[in-house]
Protein backbone atom coordinates (compact mmCIF):
# COMPACT_ATOMS: atom_id res chain seq x y z
CA UNK A 1 0.00 0.00 0.00
CA UNK A 2 2.98 2.29 0.49
CA UNK A 3 3.12 2.63 -3.30
CA UNK A 4 -0.32 4.20 -3.65
CA UNK A 5 0.71 7.85 -3.02
CA UNK A 6 3.55 7.50 -5.51
CA UNK A 7 1.18 6.03 -8.09
CA UNK A 8 -1.38 8.81 -7.61
CA UNK A 9 1.20 11.55 -7.93
CA UNK A 10 2.68 9.79 -10.99
CA UNK A 11 -0.77 9.68 -12.54
CA UNK A 12 -1.26 13.41 -12.06
CA UNK A 13 2.18 14.30 -13.41
CA UNK A 14 1.77 12.13 -16.49
CA UNK A 15 -1.88 13.01 -16.97
CA UNK A 16 -1.19 16.74 -17.10
CA UNK A 17 1.23 16.34 -19.99
CA UNK A 18 -1.11 13.98 -21.84
CA UNK A 19 -3.89 16.49 -21.31
CA UNK A 20 -1.89 19.29 -22.91
CA UNK A 21 -1.19 17.13 -25.98
CA UNK A 22 -4.80 15.95 -26.21
CA UNK A 23 -6.34 19.39 -25.75
CA UNK A 24 -4.62 20.74 -28.86
CA UNK A 25 -5.74 17.73 -30.89
CA UNK A 26 -9.32 17.93 -29.76
CA UNK A 27 -9.48 21.70 -30.24
CA UNK A 28 -8.37 21.31 -33.86
CA UNK A 29 -10.91 18.56 -34.37
CA UNK A 30 -13.72 20.43 -32.68
CA UNK A 31 -13.35 23.59 -34.74
CA UNK A 32 -11.88 22.36 -38.03
CA UNK A 33 -13.29 18.80 -38.14
CA UNK A 34 -9.82 17.51 -39.03
CA UNK A 35 -8.00 14.74 -37.18
CA UNK A 36 -4.41 15.86 -37.21
CA UNK A 37 -2.32 12.80 -37.98
CA UNK A 38 0.80 14.97 -37.86
CA UNK A 39 0.20 15.95 -34.23
CA UNK A 40 2.91 13.64 -32.93
CA UNK A 41 5.44 15.10 -35.34
CA UNK A 42 4.85 18.61 -34.03
CA UNK A 43 5.45 17.20 -30.56
CA UNK A 44 8.67 15.58 -31.70
CA UNK A 45 9.84 18.84 -33.30
CA UNK A 46 9.19 20.57 -29.97
CA UNK A 47 11.46 18.05 -28.31
CA UNK A 48 14.15 18.71 -30.89
CA UNK A 49 13.68 22.46 -30.48
CA UNK A 50 14.47 22.12 -26.78
CA UNK A 51 17.34 19.75 -27.46
CA UNK A 52 18.82 21.93 -30.21
CA UNK A 53 18.61 25.13 -28.17
CA UNK A 54 20.25 23.36 -25.26
CA UNK A 55 23.00 21.64 -27.24
CA UNK A 56 23.89 24.53 -29.56
CA UNK A 57 23.04 27.67 -27.61
CA UNK A 58 23.13 26.25 -24.11
CA UNK A 59 19.57 27.41 -23.45
CA UNK A 60 17.83 25.98 -20.45
CA UNK A 61 14.79 23.99 -21.70
CA UNK A 62 12.47 26.25 -19.68
CA UNK A 63 13.81 29.34 -21.38
CA UNK A 64 13.12 27.53 -24.64
CA UNK A 65 9.64 26.74 -23.37
CA UNK A 66 8.78 30.44 -23.09
CA UNK A 67 10.35 31.21 -26.47
CA UNK A 68 8.70 28.21 -28.11
CA UNK A 69 5.17 29.56 -27.75
CA UNK A 70 5.51 32.45 -30.23
CA UNK A 71 7.70 30.28 -32.49
CA UNK A 72 5.11 27.55 -32.54
CA UNK A 73 2.23 29.93 -33.10
CA UNK A 74 4.12 31.19 -36.16
CA UNK A 75 4.90 27.64 -37.32
CA UNK A 76 1.27 26.68 -36.84
CA UNK A 77 0.04 29.71 -38.74
CA UNK A 78 2.43 29.05 -41.61
CA UNK A 79 1.58 25.36 -41.82
CA UNK A 80 -2.10 26.24 -41.88
CA UNK A 81 -1.59 28.69 -44.76
CA UNK A 82 0.47 26.28 -46.82
CA UNK A 83 -0.97 22.86 -46.06
CA UNK A 84 -4.25 22.91 -44.19
CA UNK A 85 -6.14 25.83 -45.67
CA UNK A 86 -7.00 24.21 -49.01
CA UNK A 87 -8.35 21.04 -47.41
CA UNK A 88 -10.43 22.28 -44.48
CA UNK A 89 -13.61 21.59 -46.39
CA UNK A 90 -12.33 18.57 -48.33
CA UNK A 91 -13.44 14.95 -47.78
CA UNK A 92 -12.18 12.80 -44.91
CA UNK A 93 -9.86 10.88 -47.23
CA UNK A 94 -8.15 14.03 -48.44
CA UNK A 95 -7.80 15.35 -44.89
CA UNK A 96 -6.40 12.08 -43.58
CA UNK A 97 -3.84 11.74 -46.34
CA UNK A 98 -2.81 15.40 -46.21
CA UNK A 99 -1.99 15.29 -42.51
CA UNK A 100 -0.38 11.86 -42.96
CA UNK A 101 1.77 13.34 -45.74
CA UNK A 102 2.69 16.23 -43.46
CA UNK A 103 3.60 13.71 -40.76
CA UNK A 104 5.88 11.72 -43.09
CA UNK A 105 7.59 14.89 -44.31
CA UNK A 106 8.17 16.34 -40.82
CA UNK A 107 9.39 13.05 -39.39
CA UNK A 108 11.99 12.78 -42.09
CA UNK A 109 13.03 16.40 -41.84
CA UNK A 110 14.04 15.45 -38.29
CA UNK A 111 15.72 12.30 -39.56
CA UNK A 112 17.80 14.25 -42.07
CA UNK A 113 18.70 17.03 -39.66
CA UNK A 114 19.48 14.98 -36.56
CA UNK A 115 19.75 11.31 -37.73
CA UNK A 116 17.84 8.48 -36.06
CA UNK A 117 20.03 8.45 -32.91
CA UNK A 118 18.23 8.96 -29.62
CA UNK A 119 19.35 12.25 -28.05
CA UNK A 120 19.25 13.06 -24.37
CA UNK A 121 18.78 16.49 -22.90
CA UNK A 122 20.40 16.36 -19.47
CA UNK A 123 20.28 19.55 -17.43
CA UNK A 124 22.55 20.06 -14.40
CA UNK A 125 19.62 19.69 -12.06
CA UNK A 126 18.39 16.53 -13.77
CA UNK A 127 19.23 14.30 -10.82
CA UNK A 128 17.61 16.56 -8.20
CA UNK A 129 14.85 14.61 -6.53
CA UNK A 130 11.75 16.18 -5.02
CA UNK A 131 9.66 14.31 -2.47
CA UNK A 132 5.89 14.68 -2.39
CA UNK A 133 4.03 12.71 0.30
CA UNK A 134 6.87 10.24 0.36
CA UNK A 135 6.81 9.86 -3.42
CA UNK A 136 10.00 10.77 -5.27
CA UNK A 137 10.18 12.72 -8.55
CA UNK A 138 12.70 14.68 -10.48
CA UNK A 139 12.42 18.40 -11.08
CA UNK A 140 11.72 18.12 -14.81
CA UNK A 141 8.54 16.16 -14.17
CA UNK A 142 7.29 18.68 -11.62
CA UNK A 143 8.00 21.65 -13.90
CA UNK A 144 6.37 19.87 -16.85
CA UNK A 145 3.31 19.28 -14.69
CA UNK A 146 3.09 22.89 -13.52
CA UNK A 147 3.61 24.34 -16.99
CA UNK A 148 1.10 21.93 -18.55
CA UNK A 149 -1.57 22.76 -16.01
CA UNK A 150 -0.93 26.47 -16.46
CA UNK A 151 -1.09 26.28 -20.25
CA UNK A 152 -4.17 24.09 -20.30
CA UNK A 153 -5.90 26.41 -17.83
CA UNK A 154 -4.90 29.42 -19.93
CA UNK A 155 -6.37 27.75 -23.02
CA UNK A 156 -9.63 27.02 -21.22
CA UNK A 157 -9.81 30.61 -20.01
CA UNK A 158 -9.08 31.84 -23.52
CA UNK A 159 -11.85 29.69 -24.98
CA UNK A 160 -14.27 30.64 -22.24
CA UNK A 161 -13.82 34.38 -21.86
CA UNK A 162 -11.99 35.91 -24.78
CA UNK A 163 -13.89 37.13 -27.83
CA UNK A 164 -11.71 35.02 -30.12
CA UNK A 165 -12.42 31.95 -28.03
CA UNK A 166 -16.14 32.63 -28.25
CA UNK A 167 -15.88 32.95 -32.02
CA UNK A 168 -13.97 29.68 -32.16
CA UNK A 169 -16.67 27.92 -30.14
CA UNK A 170 -19.33 29.38 -32.40
CA UNK A 171 -17.52 28.04 -35.45
CA UNK A 172 -17.20 24.63 -33.81
CA UNK A 173 -20.94 24.57 -33.23
CA UNK A 174 -22.00 25.56 -36.72
CA UNK A 175 -19.57 26.73 -39.35
CA UNK A 176 -22.22 27.85 -41.84
CA UNK A 177 -24.19 29.85 -39.32
CA UNK A 178 -21.07 31.49 -37.94
CA UNK A 179 -19.93 32.43 -41.44
CA UNK A 180 -23.35 33.97 -42.00
CA UNK A 181 -22.93 35.95 -38.77
CA UNK A 182 -19.90 37.58 -40.32
CA UNK A 183 -17.24 35.45 -38.67
CA UNK A 184 -14.12 35.09 -40.77
CA UNK A 185 -13.97 31.28 -40.51
CA UNK A 186 -10.71 31.08 -42.41
CA UNK A 187 -9.06 33.23 -39.75
CA UNK A 188 -10.70 31.15 -37.01
CA UNK A 189 -9.26 27.96 -38.52
CA UNK A 190 -5.82 29.56 -38.74
CA UNK A 191 -5.94 30.59 -35.08
CA UNK A 192 -7.28 27.19 -34.01
CA UNK A 193 -4.58 25.32 -35.89
CA UNK A 194 -1.84 27.63 -34.58
CA UNK A 195 -3.06 27.34 -30.98
CA UNK A 196 -3.42 23.55 -31.19
CA UNK A 197 0.06 23.21 -32.65
CA UNK A 198 1.50 25.58 -30.04
CA UNK A 199 0.04 23.40 -27.26
CA UNK A 200 1.58 20.24 -28.58
CA UNK A 201 4.88 21.98 -29.39
CA UNK A 202 5.08 23.32 -25.85
CA UNK A 203 4.35 19.83 -24.56
CA UNK A 204 7.26 18.56 -26.66
CA UNK A 205 9.61 21.12 -25.13
CA UNK A 206 8.49 20.07 -21.65
CA UNK A 207 8.97 16.36 -22.44
CA UNK A 208 12.48 16.80 -23.87
CA UNK A 209 14.29 16.80 -20.48
CA UNK A 210 12.43 13.64 -19.43
CA UNK A 211 12.32 11.35 -22.47
CA UNK A 212 14.86 10.48 -25.19
CA UNK A 213 14.45 12.51 -28.39
CA UNK A 214 14.31 10.73 -31.76
CA UNK A 215 12.42 11.25 -35.03
CA UNK A 216 9.56 8.86 -34.23
CA UNK A 217 9.29 9.89 -30.57
CA UNK A 218 5.95 11.53 -31.23
CA UNK A 219 4.10 8.33 -32.06
CA UNK A 220 3.91 6.87 -28.54
CA UNK A 221 2.55 10.12 -27.10
CA UNK A 222 0.16 10.88 -29.89
CA UNK A 223 -1.35 7.40 -29.73
CA UNK A 224 -2.21 8.17 -26.12
CA UNK A 225 -3.59 11.52 -27.20
CA UNK A 226 -5.85 9.82 -29.78
CA UNK A 227 -7.15 7.52 -27.06
CA UNK A 228 -7.73 10.47 -24.74
CA UNK A 229 -9.45 12.52 -27.39
CA UNK A 230 -11.84 9.77 -28.44
CA UNK A 231 -12.48 8.70 -24.86
CA UNK A 232 -13.31 12.28 -23.92
CA UNK A 233 -15.46 12.74 -26.99
CA UNK A 234 -13.82 14.13 -30.13
CA UNK A 235 -13.85 17.92 -29.95
CA UNK A 236 -14.64 18.08 -26.23
CA UNK A 237 -11.78 19.82 -24.40
CA UNK A 238 -12.85 19.14 -20.81
CA UNK A 239 -13.54 15.54 -21.78
CA UNK A 240 -10.04 15.24 -23.22
CA UNK A 241 -8.47 16.44 -19.97
CA UNK A 242 -10.45 14.00 -17.85
CA UNK A 243 -9.76 11.18 -20.30
CA UNK A 244 -6.03 12.02 -20.26
CA UNK A 245 -6.04 11.56 -16.48
CA UNK A 246 -7.95 8.28 -16.84
CA UNK A 247 -5.40 6.98 -19.33
CA UNK A 248 -2.50 8.09 -17.18
CA UNK A 249 -4.09 6.21 -14.28
CA UNK A 250 -4.57 3.10 -16.41
CA UNK A 251 -0.96 3.32 -17.54
CA UNK A 252 0.55 3.97 -14.10
CA UNK A 253 -1.53 1.50 -12.10
CA UNK A 254 -1.43 -1.05 -14.92
CA UNK A 255 2.37 -0.90 -15.08
CA UNK A 256 2.51 -1.36 -11.33
CA UNK A 257 0.25 -4.40 -11.35
CA UNK A 258 1.20 -6.27 -14.53
CA UNK A 259 4.58 -4.76 -15.42
CA UNK A 260 5.64 -2.02 -17.81
CA UNK A 261 6.09 -4.17 -20.89
CA UNK A 262 2.35 -4.65 -21.48
CA UNK A 263 1.16 -1.18 -20.52
CA UNK A 264 0.52 -0.12 -24.14
CA UNK A 265 -1.86 -3.03 -24.57
CA UNK A 266 -3.93 -1.75 -21.67
CA UNK A 267 -4.72 1.63 -23.14
CA UNK A 268 -5.06 0.27 -26.66
CA UNK A 269 -7.64 -2.23 -25.43
CA UNK A 270 -9.34 0.58 -23.54
CA UNK A 271 -9.36 2.55 -26.80
CA UNK A 272 -10.87 -0.32 -28.79
CA UNK A 273 -13.46 -0.91 -26.07
CA UNK A 274 -14.47 2.75 -26.18
CA UNK A 275 -14.66 2.73 -29.99
CA UNK A 276 -16.83 -0.36 -29.92
CA UNK A 277 -19.05 0.40 -26.96
CA UNK A 278 -19.40 4.14 -27.08
CA UNK A 279 -17.44 5.77 -29.92
CA UNK A 280 -18.79 9.17 -28.96
CA UNK A 281 -16.70 8.92 -25.80
CA UNK A 282 -17.59 9.89 -22.28
CA UNK A 283 -18.82 13.37 -23.05
CA UNK A 284 -19.29 13.39 -26.82
CA UNK A 285 -22.51 13.59 -28.72
CA UNK A 286 -24.07 10.19 -29.34
CA UNK A 287 -23.97 9.09 -32.94
CA UNK A 288 -21.03 11.35 -33.83
CA UNK A 289 -19.13 8.35 -35.16
CA UNK A 290 -21.92 7.52 -37.58
CA UNK A 291 -21.46 10.73 -39.50
CA UNK A 292 -17.72 10.71 -39.00
CA UNK A 293 -17.75 14.08 -37.29
Amino acid at each position, binding site marked *: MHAIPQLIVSTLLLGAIYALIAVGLTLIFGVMRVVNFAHGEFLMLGMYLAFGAWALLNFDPYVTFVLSLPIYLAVGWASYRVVMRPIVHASHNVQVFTTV*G*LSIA*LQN*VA*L*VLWTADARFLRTDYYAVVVRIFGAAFNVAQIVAFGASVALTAALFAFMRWSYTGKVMRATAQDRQASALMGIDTDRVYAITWAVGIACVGAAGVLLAPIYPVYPTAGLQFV*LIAYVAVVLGGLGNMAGAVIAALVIAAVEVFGSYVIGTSWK*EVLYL*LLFITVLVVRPAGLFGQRGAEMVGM
Partner: protein
Amino acid sequence: MRGVTPAVIFFAGAGLAPLVVQDAFLLDSLVFILIWGAAAAAWNVAGGYAGQISLGHSAFFGLGAYGAAIFGVRWELSPWLGLAAGALVAMVVGLLIGYLSNRLRGPYFVLATIAFSQVLLVAASRWRGFLSGGEGIPVPFRPGFWTLGIADKRVWVWIVLGLAILAYVVAMYLERARRGYQLAAVREDEDAALSLGVPARRLKVAAICVSAALTAACGALWAQYVGFVDPFYVFSVDLSLRFALAAVVGGLGTALGPFLGAALVTTVETFLRGQFGGIGAGLVGIYLIIYGCALIVMVRWAPQGLVGWVRERWPRRAVAGTAP
Protein backbone atom coordinates in the same frame (compact mmCIF):
# COMPACT_ATOMS: atom_id res chain seq x y z
CA MET B 1 -12.39 -7.93 -72.38
CA ARG B 2 -13.03 -4.23 -72.66
CA GLY B 3 -11.05 -1.92 -70.42
CA VAL B 4 -8.44 -4.41 -69.33
CA THR B 5 -5.91 -3.85 -72.13
CA PRO B 6 -3.56 -1.71 -69.98
CA ALA B 7 -3.64 -4.36 -67.26
CA VAL B 8 -2.92 -7.15 -69.72
CA ILE B 9 0.04 -5.17 -71.03
CA PHE B 10 1.26 -4.47 -67.49
CA PHE B 11 1.06 -8.06 -66.26
CA ALA B 12 2.34 -9.56 -69.50
CA GLY B 13 5.27 -7.17 -69.34
CA ALA B 14 6.01 -8.18 -65.76
CA GLY B 15 5.66 -11.89 -66.61
CA LEU B 16 7.86 -11.74 -69.70
CA ALA B 17 10.50 -9.43 -68.24
CA PRO B 18 12.40 -12.26 -66.46
CA LEU B 19 12.93 -13.96 -69.84
CA VAL B 20 14.81 -10.91 -71.08
CA VAL B 21 16.23 -9.26 -67.99
CA GLN B 22 19.05 -11.08 -66.25
CA ASP B 23 20.08 -8.34 -63.86
CA ALA B 24 19.42 -9.45 -60.26
CA PHE B 25 18.82 -5.89 -59.09
CA LEU B 26 16.10 -5.21 -61.65
CA LEU B 27 14.42 -8.54 -60.95
CA ASP B 28 14.55 -7.79 -57.23
CA SER B 29 12.86 -4.43 -57.85
CA LEU B 30 10.22 -6.15 -59.95
CA VAL B 31 9.45 -8.66 -57.17
CA PHE B 32 8.99 -5.79 -54.72
CA ILE B 33 6.88 -3.77 -57.14
CA LEU B 34 4.56 -6.76 -57.54
CA ILE B 35 4.41 -7.53 -53.80
CA TRP B 36 3.69 -3.89 -52.85
CA GLY B 37 1.33 -3.62 -55.80
CA ALA B 38 -0.61 -6.69 -54.69
CA ALA B 39 -0.70 -5.42 -51.10
CA ALA B 40 -1.89 -2.00 -52.27
CA ALA B 41 -4.53 -3.65 -54.45
CA ALA B 42 -5.62 -5.69 -51.44
CA TRP B 43 -5.81 -2.50 -49.37
CA ASN B 44 -7.79 -0.92 -52.17
CA VAL B 45 -10.53 -3.55 -51.85
CA ALA B 46 -11.32 -2.17 -48.40
CA GLY B 47 -9.99 1.39 -48.69
CA GLY B 48 -10.85 2.21 -52.29
CA TYR B 49 -13.93 0.19 -53.18
CA ALA B 50 -15.58 -0.05 -49.77
CA GLY B 51 -14.35 3.36 -48.58
CA GLN B 52 -13.02 1.85 -45.35
CA ILE B 53 -9.78 3.82 -45.11
CA SER B 54 -7.52 1.71 -42.93
CA LEU B 55 -4.11 2.65 -41.60
CA GLY B 56 -3.76 -0.66 -39.80
CA HIS B 57 -3.45 -3.05 -42.69
CA SER B 58 0.04 -4.01 -41.58
CA ALA B 59 -1.80 -6.12 -38.98
CA PHE B 60 -2.86 -8.51 -41.75
CA PHE B 61 0.49 -8.33 -43.52
CA GLY B 62 2.22 -9.21 -40.25
CA LEU B 63 -0.14 -12.11 -39.58
CA GLY B 64 0.73 -13.58 -42.98
CA ALA B 65 4.45 -13.03 -42.44
CA TYR B 66 4.32 -14.66 -39.01
CA GLY B 67 2.20 -17.48 -40.43
CA ALA B 68 4.85 -18.37 -42.98
CA ALA B 69 7.67 -17.96 -40.45
CA ILE B 70 6.05 -20.07 -37.73
CA PHE B 71 5.03 -22.88 -40.09
CA GLY B 72 8.44 -22.92 -41.69
CA VAL B 73 10.71 -22.39 -38.68
CA ARG B 74 8.82 -23.62 -35.62
CA TRP B 75 6.94 -26.55 -37.12
CA GLU B 76 9.11 -27.29 -40.15
CA LEU B 77 6.06 -27.33 -42.38
CA SER B 78 5.61 -25.73 -45.76
CA PRO B 79 5.34 -21.94 -45.77
CA TRP B 80 2.55 -22.44 -48.32
CA LEU B 81 0.51 -23.90 -45.48
CA GLY B 82 1.66 -20.95 -43.38
CA LEU B 83 0.40 -18.62 -46.09
CA ALA B 84 -2.98 -20.33 -46.04
CA ALA B 85 -3.12 -20.32 -42.25
CA GLY B 86 -2.02 -16.69 -42.10
CA ALA B 87 -4.67 -15.72 -44.62
CA LEU B 88 -7.29 -17.59 -42.63
CA VAL B 89 -6.28 -15.97 -39.34
CA ALA B 90 -6.18 -12.58 -41.06
CA MET B 91 -9.71 -13.18 -42.33
CA VAL B 92 -10.90 -13.97 -38.83
CA VAL B 93 -9.17 -10.88 -37.45
CA GLY B 94 -10.59 -8.88 -40.36
CA LEU B 95 -14.03 -10.22 -39.50
CA LEU B 96 -13.51 -9.13 -35.90
CA ILE B 97 -12.21 -5.67 -36.82
CA GLY B 98 -14.85 -5.19 -39.48
CA TYR B 99 -17.62 -6.28 -37.15
CA LEU B 100 -16.41 -4.26 -34.17
CA SER B 101 -15.77 -1.05 -36.06
CA ASN B 102 -18.74 -1.34 -38.38
CA ARG B 103 -20.45 1.75 -37.00
CA LEU B 104 -17.33 3.88 -37.25
CA ARG B 105 -16.86 6.26 -40.13
CA GLY B 106 -14.19 8.66 -41.31
CA PRO B 107 -11.41 9.39 -38.83
CA TYR B 108 -12.94 7.08 -36.19
CA PHE B 109 -12.42 4.07 -38.42
CA VAL B 110 -8.84 5.13 -39.23
CA LEU B 111 -8.01 5.45 -35.54
CA ALA B 112 -9.58 2.07 -34.73
CA THR B 113 -7.52 0.29 -37.38
CA ILE B 114 -4.32 1.91 -36.12
CA ALA B 115 -5.16 0.71 -32.61
CA PHE B 116 -5.75 -2.88 -33.76
CA SER B 117 -2.42 -3.05 -35.59
CA GLN B 118 -0.64 -1.57 -32.57
CA VAL B 119 -2.13 -4.23 -30.30
CA LEU B 120 -0.69 -6.91 -32.58
CA LEU B 121 2.66 -5.10 -32.69
CA VAL B 122 2.91 -5.01 -28.91
CA ALA B 123 1.74 -8.61 -28.60
CA ALA B 124 4.21 -9.92 -31.20
CA SER B 125 7.14 -7.93 -29.88
CA ARG B 126 6.54 -8.92 -26.23
CA TRP B 127 5.78 -12.63 -26.69
CA ARG B 128 9.29 -13.86 -26.19
CA GLY B 129 9.16 -17.64 -26.29
CA PHE B 130 7.17 -18.74 -29.29
CA LEU B 131 7.44 -15.56 -31.38
CA SER B 132 10.98 -14.59 -30.23
CA GLY B 133 9.63 -11.21 -29.09
CA GLY B 134 11.26 -8.08 -30.45
CA GLU B 135 14.18 -9.99 -31.92
CA GLY B 136 12.05 -11.24 -34.78
CA ILE B 137 12.21 -14.57 -36.55
CA PRO B 138 14.83 -15.31 -39.22
CA VAL B 139 13.38 -17.47 -41.98
CA PRO B 140 16.08 -19.91 -43.09
CA PHE B 141 16.60 -20.83 -46.71
CA ARG B 142 15.37 -24.35 -47.36
CA PRO B 143 15.74 -25.20 -51.06
CA GLY B 144 12.68 -26.41 -52.93
CA PHE B 145 9.40 -25.08 -54.24
CA TRP B 146 7.32 -26.63 -51.44
CA THR B 147 9.52 -24.93 -48.82
CA LEU B 148 9.66 -21.75 -50.89
CA GLY B 149 13.43 -21.69 -50.85
CA ILE B 150 13.99 -20.42 -54.34
CA ALA B 151 17.26 -18.82 -55.32
CA ASP B 152 16.14 -17.97 -58.83
CA LYS B 153 14.57 -14.50 -58.76
CA ARG B 154 12.76 -15.19 -62.02
CA VAL B 155 10.66 -17.83 -60.32
CA TRP B 156 9.91 -15.35 -57.55
CA VAL B 157 8.66 -12.86 -60.10
CA TRP B 158 6.20 -15.43 -61.42
CA ILE B 159 5.03 -16.47 -57.94
CA VAL B 160 4.27 -12.92 -56.81
CA LEU B 161 2.83 -12.17 -60.25
CA GLY B 162 0.27 -14.91 -59.57
CA LEU B 163 -0.77 -13.19 -56.36
CA ALA B 164 -0.82 -9.79 -58.06
CA ILE B 165 -3.12 -11.08 -60.78
CA LEU B 166 -5.38 -12.64 -58.15
CA ALA B 167 -5.66 -9.26 -56.41
CA TYR B 168 -6.39 -7.61 -59.76
CA VAL B 169 -9.10 -10.16 -60.56
CA VAL B 170 -10.79 -9.45 -57.22
CA ALA B 171 -10.74 -5.75 -58.04
CA MET B 172 -12.12 -6.40 -61.54
CA TYR B 173 -14.89 -8.47 -59.99
CA LEU B 174 -15.80 -5.48 -57.84
CA GLU B 175 -15.85 -3.25 -60.92
CA ARG B 176 -18.11 -5.53 -62.91
CA ALA B 177 -20.31 -7.41 -60.47
CA ARG B 178 -23.49 -6.37 -58.71
CA ARG B 179 -21.74 -6.58 -55.34
CA GLY B 180 -19.13 -4.11 -56.54
CA TYR B 181 -21.81 -1.60 -57.44
CA GLN B 182 -23.46 -2.14 -54.07
CA LEU B 183 -20.14 -1.56 -52.36
CA ALA B 184 -19.63 1.65 -54.32
CA ALA B 185 -23.08 2.76 -53.19
CA VAL B 186 -22.13 2.07 -49.57
CA ARG B 187 -18.93 4.06 -50.00
CA GLU B 188 -20.66 7.07 -51.54
CA ASP B 189 -23.63 7.20 -49.17
CA GLU B 190 -24.10 4.44 -46.66
CA ASP B 191 -27.46 5.64 -45.38
CA ALA B 192 -28.90 5.90 -48.88
CA ALA B 193 -27.54 2.45 -49.73
CA LEU B 194 -29.06 0.97 -46.58
CA SER B 195 -32.42 2.49 -47.35
CA LEU B 196 -32.32 0.86 -50.80
CA GLY B 197 -31.87 -2.53 -49.19
CA VAL B 198 -28.14 -2.92 -49.77
CA PRO B 199 -26.70 -5.07 -46.96
CA ALA B 200 -24.11 -2.40 -46.17
CA ARG B 201 -22.78 -3.84 -42.94
CA ARG B 202 -22.21 -7.32 -44.34
CA LEU B 203 -20.60 -6.00 -47.53
CA LYS B 204 -18.18 -3.81 -45.60
CA VAL B 205 -17.11 -6.71 -43.37
CA ALA B 206 -16.76 -9.01 -46.39
CA ALA B 207 -14.59 -6.44 -48.18
CA ILE B 208 -12.32 -6.14 -45.14
CA CYS B 209 -12.05 -9.95 -44.88
CA VAL B 210 -11.07 -10.40 -48.52
CA SER B 211 -8.66 -7.50 -48.26
CA ALA B 212 -7.15 -9.01 -45.09
CA ALA B 213 -6.63 -12.45 -46.64
CA LEU B 214 -4.92 -11.01 -49.72
CA THR B 215 -2.73 -8.74 -47.59
CA ALA B 216 -1.72 -11.72 -45.43
CA ALA B 217 -0.75 -13.70 -48.53
CA CYS B 218 1.50 -10.78 -49.55
CA GLY B 219 3.03 -10.82 -46.07
CA ALA B 220 3.76 -14.56 -46.23
CA LEU B 221 5.50 -14.31 -49.60
CA TRP B 222 7.35 -11.20 -48.47
CA ALA B 223 8.65 -13.01 -45.36
CA GLN B 224 9.90 -15.92 -47.46
CA TYR B 225 11.52 -13.63 -49.99
CA VAL B 226 13.20 -11.29 -47.53
CA GLY B 227 14.03 -14.03 -45.02
CA PHE B 228 13.38 -12.12 -41.80
CA VAL B 229 10.27 -11.16 -39.87
CA ASP B 230 10.68 -8.13 -37.61
CA PRO B 231 7.57 -7.30 -35.55
CA PHE B 232 8.42 -3.59 -35.47
CA TYR B 233 8.38 -3.53 -39.25
CA VAL B 234 5.62 -5.93 -40.25
CA PHE B 235 3.08 -4.42 -37.83
CA SER B 236 4.18 -0.78 -38.21
CA VAL B 237 1.99 2.16 -39.17
CA ASP B 238 4.64 3.01 -41.77
CA LEU B 239 3.95 -0.23 -43.58
CA SER B 240 0.20 0.38 -43.53
CA LEU B 241 0.94 3.78 -45.02
CA ARG B 242 2.95 2.19 -47.78
CA PHE B 243 -0.08 0.20 -48.96
CA ALA B 244 -2.42 3.15 -48.67
CA LEU B 245 -0.04 5.53 -50.45
CA ALA B 246 0.52 3.28 -53.44
CA ALA B 247 -3.25 2.95 -53.83
CA VAL B 248 -3.84 6.70 -53.43
CA VAL B 249 -1.08 7.59 -55.88
CA GLY B 250 -2.34 5.06 -58.41
CA GLY B 251 -6.00 5.82 -57.93
CA LEU B 252 -8.42 4.89 -55.15
CA GLY B 253 -10.99 2.38 -56.25
CA THR B 254 -9.38 1.49 -59.57
CA ALA B 255 -8.22 -2.01 -60.42
CA LEU B 256 -4.85 -1.23 -62.00
CA GLY B 257 -4.13 1.95 -60.02
CA PRO B 258 -2.46 0.35 -56.99
CA PHE B 259 -0.02 -1.50 -59.25
CA LEU B 260 0.90 1.64 -61.16
CA GLY B 261 1.18 3.48 -57.85
CA ALA B 262 3.44 0.81 -56.38
CA ALA B 263 5.58 0.77 -59.53
CA LEU B 264 5.96 4.54 -59.46
CA VAL B 265 6.57 4.82 -55.72
CA THR B 266 9.04 1.92 -55.59
CA THR B 267 10.97 3.15 -58.61
CA VAL B 268 11.16 6.73 -57.38
CA GLU B 269 12.13 5.49 -53.93
CA THR B 270 14.96 3.34 -55.28
CA PHE B 271 16.16 6.18 -57.50
CA LEU B 272 16.12 8.83 -54.75
CA ARG B 273 17.74 6.46 -52.27
CA GLY B 274 20.50 5.90 -54.78
CA GLN B 275 20.84 9.64 -55.33
CA PHE B 276 20.86 10.75 -51.71
CA GLY B 277 22.03 7.61 -49.94
CA GLY B 278 25.54 8.06 -51.30
CA ILE B 279 26.00 11.55 -49.90
CA GLY B 280 25.44 10.66 -46.27
CA ALA B 281 23.58 8.10 -44.24
CA GLY B 282 21.32 10.75 -42.70
CA LEU B 283 20.11 11.92 -46.07
CA VAL B 284 18.16 8.74 -46.81
CA GLY B 285 15.21 10.53 -45.25
CA ILE B 286 15.11 13.04 -48.10
CA TYR B 287 13.16 10.71 -50.33
CA LEU B 288 10.53 10.39 -47.64
CA ILE B 289 10.30 14.17 -47.30
CA ILE B 290 9.65 14.35 -51.03
CA TYR B 291 7.20 11.49 -50.62
CA GLY B 292 5.25 13.28 -47.90
CA CYS B 293 5.14 16.56 -49.82
CA ALA B 294 4.16 14.73 -53.01
CA LEU B 295 1.28 13.12 -51.14
CA ILE B 296 0.00 16.49 -49.91
CA VAL B 297 0.24 17.97 -53.40
CA MET B 298 -1.28 14.88 -54.94
CA VAL B 299 -4.46 14.65 -52.84
CA ARG B 300 -4.96 18.36 -53.37
CA TRP B 301 -4.64 18.57 -57.13
CA ALA B 302 -5.10 15.02 -58.36
CA PRO B 303 -7.14 13.18 -55.74
CA GLN B 304 -8.20 10.63 -58.34
CA GLY B 305 -4.65 9.35 -58.65
CA LEU B 306 -2.71 8.40 -61.77
CA VAL B 307 -5.49 6.37 -63.34
CA GLY B 308 -8.07 9.07 -62.69
CA TRP B 309 -5.74 11.70 -64.10
CA VAL B 310 -5.16 9.69 -67.26
CA ARG B 311 -8.89 9.06 -67.67
CA GLU B 312 -9.58 12.74 -67.37
CA ARG B 313 -7.06 13.54 -70.09
CA TRP B 314 -8.00 10.75 -72.44
CA PRO B 315 -11.59 9.79 -71.70
CA ARG B 316 -12.64 6.40 -72.99
CA ARG B 317 -15.73 5.97 -75.04
CA ALA B 318 -18.63 4.88 -72.91
CA VAL B 319 -17.72 1.72 -71.06
CA ALA B 320 -19.70 0.34 -68.16
CA GLY B 321 -18.22 -0.08 -64.74
CA THR B 322 -15.83 2.82 -64.52
CA ALA B 323 -14.96 3.72 -60.96
CA PRO B 324 -15.40 7.35 -59.89
